[in-house]
């Protein structure tokens, strides 16, 4: 159980000796086509204040059936089209326990120096028991020397009634800083869900 002393310690030293997982911003989706975290906008911090950032996405519910949840990164322009090389592997297990559980590299949903959005889940439906939760780590996005690494993991109740996990990682192969991150489905809106951004001091 945290004590008052713990809380006081974090407040006094948020970016120094105390350190912590510091909450920056929460955005609730409501039939939104995209959800964006833009440095300097609406209290979002996504710069050299922190070395590491974590996005949590919780109960992300699609507005359309048979869609993929994805992420894009902005590297200096207004578009979320930073060049990326990525890996993605996934598992699947049906609620009915039928068939052989899937463990596979997702060849069609990775990127090789691609500028499109990176898929972070298997296929979602619109049933209330179908949604996605997970997290995305972004390392040192303000670096103008190194590529910007990211890694994520997610789980969904898919549109064919299975538990599907996705593990992806990659780098934005650019020296420009990444100053904004956007989430969306490949089709339709984000009907509901919660997005949280944290900085690690």
């Amino acid at each position, binding site marked *: 159980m*945290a004590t*008052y002393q*713990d*809380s006081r*310690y*974090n*407040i006094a030293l*948020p970016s*120094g*000796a*105390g*350190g*912590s*997982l*510091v*909450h*920056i911003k929460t955005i609730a989706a409501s039939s939104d086509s995209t959800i964006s975290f833009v440095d300097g906008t609406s209290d979002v*911090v996504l710069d050299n*204040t922190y*070395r*590491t950032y974590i996005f949590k996405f919780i109960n992300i519910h699609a507005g359309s059936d048979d869609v993929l949840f994805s992420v894009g990164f902005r590297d200096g322009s207004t578009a979320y089209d930073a060049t990326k*090389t*990525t*890996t*993605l*592997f996934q598992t699947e297990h049906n609620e009915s326990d039928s068939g052989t559980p899937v463990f*596979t*590299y997702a*060849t069609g949903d*990775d*990127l*090789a*120096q691609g500028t499109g959005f990176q898929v972070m889940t298997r296929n979602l439906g619109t049933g209330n028991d179908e949604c996605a939760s997970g997290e995305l*780590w972004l*390392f*040192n996005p303000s*670096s103008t*020397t*190194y*590529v910007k*690494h*990211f*890694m994520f993991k997610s789980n969904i109740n898919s549109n064919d009634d299975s538990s599907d996990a996705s*593990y*992806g*990682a*990659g*780098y934005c*192969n650019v*020296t420009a800083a990444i100053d904004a991150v956007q989430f969306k489905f490949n089709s339709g809106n984000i009907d509901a869900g919660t997005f949280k951004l*944290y*900085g*690690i*001091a």
Partner: protein
Amino acid sequence: MANYNAVKYDGFSKGGLKLIKTLTASSSATLSFVDGTSDVVLDSTYKEYLFIFNNIHPGTDNSAFAFQGNAAGGSGYNETITSTNFRAFHAEDDSGQTVSYVTGNDQAQGTSFQRLTSNINSANDSGACGYLHLFNPSSTTFVKHFIARVGYEEQEASIQVDMFTSGYFNTTSAIDEIQFKFESGNIDAGTIQLFGVA
């Protein structure tokens, strides 16, 4: 900058990460976290510790990033480890991709430094980012588990790698020192942060 409301909820209501120590490499042969030295805490204060790696950049081509522990009262980073290692990779030119076990990066009761990556080169578009969880290192009853995930660009032809490593120090002695290094050459640059998970 977090406001009071944000800190109140994350630091007070949920507990969280407590930064213990940040080490910045600068052509360093090793980076070591030693309990009781230079403000490092690595004992029973926390049940779980988290190391975060940011842009760990080798000084020499073709070298793997690795770690080992030293037991309390012992000498040398040479504890017995049994571990697993697998990775997904994808070439930038789309010439290959898969997920598979990496036999050469595991250990079976070995005492070598545990690989967290395969070979990395020293170009600026290389380097490694990721994290390592170390569970209950002060236990004198149980083995000490660790779980790591590191992303990097591999030596050969611009290949992106997502590497997963887990295992345990197979000892009942407490582990109170952790050291990181490249198997050859220095750590040219990068930071390693140690957090306690409250």
